[in-house]
């Protein structure tokens, strides 16, 4: 049980640092905020956002897999350890995929990684019938296709109009004004992110507690879970996924202040409207689409190759996390009991440590996050001589 909670919090942490970029990449890139100030602001807002969530997100997985009843309680046959193993395997899949995409500096949806891992573990445990494919299509596949298109369109139009309006205004005055707008809109994205994403982890932990029998109320989240999740996501944000920030802020397009403001506003509006109009869109995909669209709207060259790699990552997210989740479940199940759980936890620790060490070879830090983009994530002067662009 402890392992499940720790793993869930670890997922929350990776979620935080992976998604800092969504809100803050543009502000960092245009210099509206110093890199460290940006992540600090985002972390605080995520923390606040996590506490603001007043809904119980226990049914978060109900749409896609059938391991819970309608009221959010686990299916009776899965009470206890079977449920915990499914959740743990799913979380491991989600974390490893998050770390891998972070290593490559690619923004990918943390929610999709979590759902992918859970779907994989569920298929392994219950077979194909454990998954609600209708739900997968309507709440994951379709939104993933639409998110970047809608966001890109809105941000593109917004940017085009903004530049049309401000022609003739001296650049310095213009940028000074828009930096404030940028910070405001980016803050809103952070707040919304904290509310949405911390909730998912809270839901997962509460679900595990219910399955374990140490919590029975399916309409409330234990206070310590709330605090732990809020702190985990804020800590993750604070550490800052510089690799992803760099790709989104510098890699996709060169961003100016008015453009960044238009992009963030578009992200904020679409994330908020979509989550209340019945089609929750991935924060990551919306933000990427917005930044891309803003580049098109300003008619600056877009690095389509970088975007192409992102799309590949998005397509792979669900199946990859799913495969890891499924493999973990099989391993845990084959070995059985506490030992099986310990083994997959060991795999997680090992995988995470390996990717962390690998990332140290070409570190992206607050200092070099804004270096010129020359053919790759790693700034030119930091590249190992023997290695070509990664």
């Amino acid at each position, binding site marked *: 049980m402890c392992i499940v909670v720790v793993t869930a919090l670890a997922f929350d942490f990776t979620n935080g640092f992976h998604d800092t970029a969504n809100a803050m990449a543009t502000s960092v890139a245009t210099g509206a905020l110093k890199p460290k100030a940006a992540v600090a602001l985002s972390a605080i807002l995520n923390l606040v*956002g996590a506490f*603001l969530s*007043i*809904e119980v997100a226990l049914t978060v997985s109900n749409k896609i897999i059938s391991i819970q009843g309608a009221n959010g309680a686990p299916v009776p046959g899965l009470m206890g350890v079977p449920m915990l193993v499914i959740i743990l395997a799913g979380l491991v899949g989600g974390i490893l995929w998050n770390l891998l995409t972070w290593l490559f500096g690619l923004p990918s949806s943390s929610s999709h990684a979590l759902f992918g891992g859970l779907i994989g573990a569920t298929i392994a445990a219950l077979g194909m019938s454990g998954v609600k494919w*209708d739900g997968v*299509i*309507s709440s994951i596949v*379709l*939104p993933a296709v*639409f998110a970047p298109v*809608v*966001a890109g*369109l*809105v*941000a593109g*139009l*917004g*940017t085009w*109009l*903004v530049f049309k*309006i*401000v022609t*003739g*205004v*001296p650049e310095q*005055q*213009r940028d000074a*004004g*828009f930096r404030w*707008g940028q910070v*405001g*809109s980016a803050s*809103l994205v952070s*707040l*919304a992110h904290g*509310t949405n994403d911390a909730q998912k982890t809270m839901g997962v932990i509460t679900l595990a507690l219910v399955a374990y029998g140490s919590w029975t109320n399916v309409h409330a989240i234990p206070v310590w879970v709330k605090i732990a999740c809020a702190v985990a996501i804020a800590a993750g944000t604070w550490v800052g996924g510089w690799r992803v920030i760099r790709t989104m802020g510098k890699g996709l397009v060169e961003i100016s202040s*008015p453009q960044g*403001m*238009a992009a963030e*506003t*578009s992200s*904020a*509006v*679409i994330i*908020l*409207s*979509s*989550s*209340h*109009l*019945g*089609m929750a*869109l991935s924060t990551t995909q919306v933000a990427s689409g917005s930044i891309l669209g803003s580049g098109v709207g300003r008619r600056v060259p877009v690095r389509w190759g970088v975007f192409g790699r992102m799309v590949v990552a998005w397509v792979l997210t669900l199946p990859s996390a799913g495969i890891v989740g499924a493999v973990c479940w099989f391993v845990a199940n084959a070995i059985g009991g506490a030992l099986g759980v310990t083994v997959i936890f060991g795999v997680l620790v090992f995988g995470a440590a390996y990717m962390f060490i690998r990332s140290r070879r070409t570190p992206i830090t607050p200092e070099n996050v804004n270096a010129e983009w020359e053919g790759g994530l790693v700034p030119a002067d930091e590249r190992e001589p023997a290695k070509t662009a990664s």
Partner: protein
Amino acid sequence: MEILTKAFEALWQVLLVGLVLGVGLPALFALGVVSLSRNRRLVSVGAAGEEITKPSAAGLTGAIVCFGVCVLAVIFGIVVIVYGKQLFGV
């Protein structure tokens, strides 16, 4: 097929809200910036010969209105984040 139509129904609503607010707010903000920078009055000339100017009264009023609406929109956004589920019942 049913999920497709449902998705499109949600989609065009999101797109509509996105276009109105997502394009409208940055545009309004831009108007505010423009309003601040047009017809500035020369106040004095700085040491390096640079002109120090102030926005005109009309410009300042216009900017306050524009930025004010933006601030209201942000506050509305926060309300949606906190109470959205109750407001819209989704």
